[in-house]
């Protein structure tokens, strides 16, 4: 009996040792071996799978730079990215080199988790000449030292105001130029059965809530309407009239305009309930005739195909933003759209910073650039007569199912402004049903030609506290739904309370920051 007891006891202890002694398999760092760089990057296309282990770039980095790169994708959801990076920072488990948005980067930098990279720019002459102008360096500078590399992540001015041209034609209407004309078109789209199916199932405007730091609630999809009243974006970034747009008297005029649209039922009534996917499904089903949409989401081949087969006669045109009562007009605030690549303090302490710069520089030109952007010549792409990379046919081509995995690091290489990148990225194609010639690049060029409001730095302005932001958004939403009546008195009371709980302080902090960084124009 006793003996058996001990056997069982030993077994149990052994088992618990096994359970709790996880993670001993970690290899010890070798002193002479290659420099190991752990990198967290954002995948170019999250759904196709990670960069394969047999990517030729790994071998090149090892042979030529003595770098053993270990690349991992960050979560596909921006909030998860922020949480993961900050949690890793709290537990001192940051990777050596990683990408983050500015708010997260700023907190990490202030917490002393990031390496000073001021001296590394000179080690990357080519990348610096392409990407890091003074504005980009300022974006990551705290007290005169830079703590990260700000690289382009979106194409400037890549959204536009779109109207269903076929609906206008059927109802005998012109393209609206002013807010009043726009209202008339919305009414016609809502009540005059523009799709001719005999049912009241269409609306004038379509949108959903998409707020960012520089496009506060109700956000991006309403910017052309806000712009008509001169209150586009979170901030007015002019020297003459700096401030929070919500505190401007014109914002009340915008609210009245919105109330007209909502009150008459001219906007798709689901707008408050839609998420991005629902909104995109809705315009493909012909639910509304006016919207703000992104160039590729509107016109790239796979995105346009469902609309094309649902409405072969359908046609969207990109129009200029409506002109408001005081002559104001804007598609929305224009920012640089930068993401920051940062080196952790831990990596710099281990002497990895220069190796990281070497690798980053390699990715910015010549062989490394082509490899990250398009893959291997003759395998994933060929160059056409103009020197534009064209995808090889079949899955291994850079736009095929397998080939796409080999260009997951593309966002580290591209600067999204050269014609080569855009022509190759947005090829011209013929739609399947209506046989139209389309290209997301044409759409982009047209959108870029419209009137935008330069708002450099608006995306790095101070952010409100959670409670203040909640108050802001909830207040506006309640005016929209009618829970609060939109009267002058109610509005004044709302703004007064907003000021009291931190709105004024927020504006003041914004002014200080914008002045210090020369963002006012």
């Amino acid at each position, binding site marked *: 009996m006793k003996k058996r007891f001990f056997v069982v006891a030993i077994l149990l202890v052994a088992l618990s040792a096994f359970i709790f002694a996880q993670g001993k398999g970690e290899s010890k760092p070798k002193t002479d071996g290659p420099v190991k760089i752990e990198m967290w990057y954002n995948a170019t296309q999250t759904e196709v799978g990670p960069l394969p282990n047999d990517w030729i770039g790994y071998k090149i980095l090892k042979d030529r730079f003595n770098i053993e790169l270990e690349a991992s994708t960050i979560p596909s959801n921006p909030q998860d990215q922020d949480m993961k990076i900050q949690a890793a920072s709290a537990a001192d488990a940051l990777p050596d080199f990683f990408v983050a948005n500015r708010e997260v980067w700023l907190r990490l930098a202030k917490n002393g988790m990031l390496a000073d990279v001021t001296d590394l720019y000179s080690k990357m002459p080519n990348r610096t000449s392409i990407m890091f102008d003074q504005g980009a360096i300022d974006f990551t500078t705290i007290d005169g030292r830079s703590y990260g590399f700000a690289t382009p992540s979106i194409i400037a001015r890549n959204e536009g105001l779109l109207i269903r041209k076929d609906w206008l034609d059927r109802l005998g209407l012109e393209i609206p130029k002013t807010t009043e004309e726009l209202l008339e078109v919305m009414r016609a789209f809502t009540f005059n059965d523009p799709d001719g199916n005999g049912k009241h199932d269409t609306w004038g405007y379509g949108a959903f809530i998409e707020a960012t730091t520089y496009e506060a609630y109700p956000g991006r999809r309403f910017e052309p309407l806000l712009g008509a009243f001169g209150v586009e974006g979170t901030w007015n970034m002019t020297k003459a009239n700096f401030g929070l747009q919500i505190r401007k008297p014109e914002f009340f005029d915008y609210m009245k305009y919105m109330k007209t649209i909502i009150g008459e039922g001219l906007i798709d009534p689901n707008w408050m309930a839609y998420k991005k996917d629902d909104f995109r499904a809705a315009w493909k089903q012909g639910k509304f005739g006016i919207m703000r949409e992104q160039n590729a989401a509107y016109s790239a081949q796979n995105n346009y195909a469902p609309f094309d087969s649902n409405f072969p006669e359908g046609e969207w045109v990109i129009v200029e933003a409506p002109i408001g009562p005081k002559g104001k007009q804007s598609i929305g605030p224009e920012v640089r759209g930068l993401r920051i690549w940062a080196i952790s303090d831990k990596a710099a302490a281990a002497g990895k910073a220069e190796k990281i710069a070497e690798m980053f520089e390699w990715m910015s030109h010549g062989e490394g650039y082509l490899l990250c952007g398009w893959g291997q010549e003759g395998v994933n792409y060929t160059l056409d007569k103009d020197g534009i990379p064209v995808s090889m046919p079949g899955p291994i081509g850079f736009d095929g199912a397998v080939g796409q995995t080999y260009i997951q690091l593309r966002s580290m290489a591209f600067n999204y402004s050269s014609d080569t990148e855009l022509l190759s990225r947005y090829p011209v194609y013929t739609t399947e049903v209506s046989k139209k010639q389309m290209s997301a690049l044409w759409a982009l060029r047209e959108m870029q030609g419209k009137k935008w409001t330069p708002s450099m730095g608006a995306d790095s302005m101070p952010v409100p506290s959670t409670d203040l932001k909640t108050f802001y958004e909830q207040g506006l*939403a309640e005016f929209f739904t009618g829970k609060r009546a939109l009267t002058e008195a109610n509005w004044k009371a709302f703004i007064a309370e907003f000021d009291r709980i931190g709105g004024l302080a927020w504006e003041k902090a914004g002014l200080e920051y914008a002045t210090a960084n020369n963002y006012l124009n």
Partner: protein
Amino acid sequence: MKRSLINDIKRQKYIYLMIFIPLVFYTVFKYIPLWNAQIAFRNFKSVRYGILNSPFVGLDNFKEFVTSYYFWNLIRNTLMYSFGKLLVSLPAAIILALAIYECRRSVLRKLVQTLAYLPHFLSWVIMYGILLSLFAPGDGIINDLLKSLGKKPIDFLTNSTTFPWLVIFSDAWKEMGWSAIIFIAALMGIDVALFEAAMVEGASSWQRVRYITLPAIRPVVVIVLLLKIGTIMDAGFNQIFMLYSPAVYNVADIIDTWVYRQGLLDGRFGLATAAGLFKGVIGMILIFTSNFLSKKYTDNSLF
């Protein structure tokens, strides 16, 4: 027989042996994090600079949470949803289990039993799609019905009167089958001989349910109830996070969604942990009280 401590432990050495490793597990994976939770009292930045080296700030994080602008609103909403769910979901699960157990039509029984588990596997992303298809003001099925009856459509999802009901009942629908499994398992343990005896004595179906079936699942129901009361300050983050929008913040924002926005996304982990501890203290008070009451009145208790 004299019951000394040593004798008792010797007598039950295998039991202590059995629970030893699980208790080590609790020490490592539950109590060390609880020790780490002292970051709630510190201005903590990163382990890199040490937890114990981060400056001690006392109750500052707690104060920030408790004095925040929407604090009472958050508490009200949190309690509203967790009690609402307790009152709706738990009875729904019990009724479902009983109905399945009592149903004599085997096809119907099997169909319901199979289908009832499935909604648990719909994530809230998908649930949102279903709710939109039912309740969307533009083209939802319910609103199409209202419109055809000549009524005005209702914005169920963005209206602060209807939103709480939507939250509570969609949760009941989604989880009742899954939580019923445990009650069905309890019903399986009922000795069939009891029913035979009841039949012989001429007990009606109602009496059988009342005197045999319900008492049989009572211990499990009490345990489930007590455990849910202990976590009453968790009102279902994933659901609210997916369903809410600024138009209903005043009735939708709960402690966890606030902590997510203010604490986790903003990297304020001390604050987030403080809110967690705050919730824990309330949960502790509630679970001890309700355990005491339950012991007194139902003779079932956790400890």
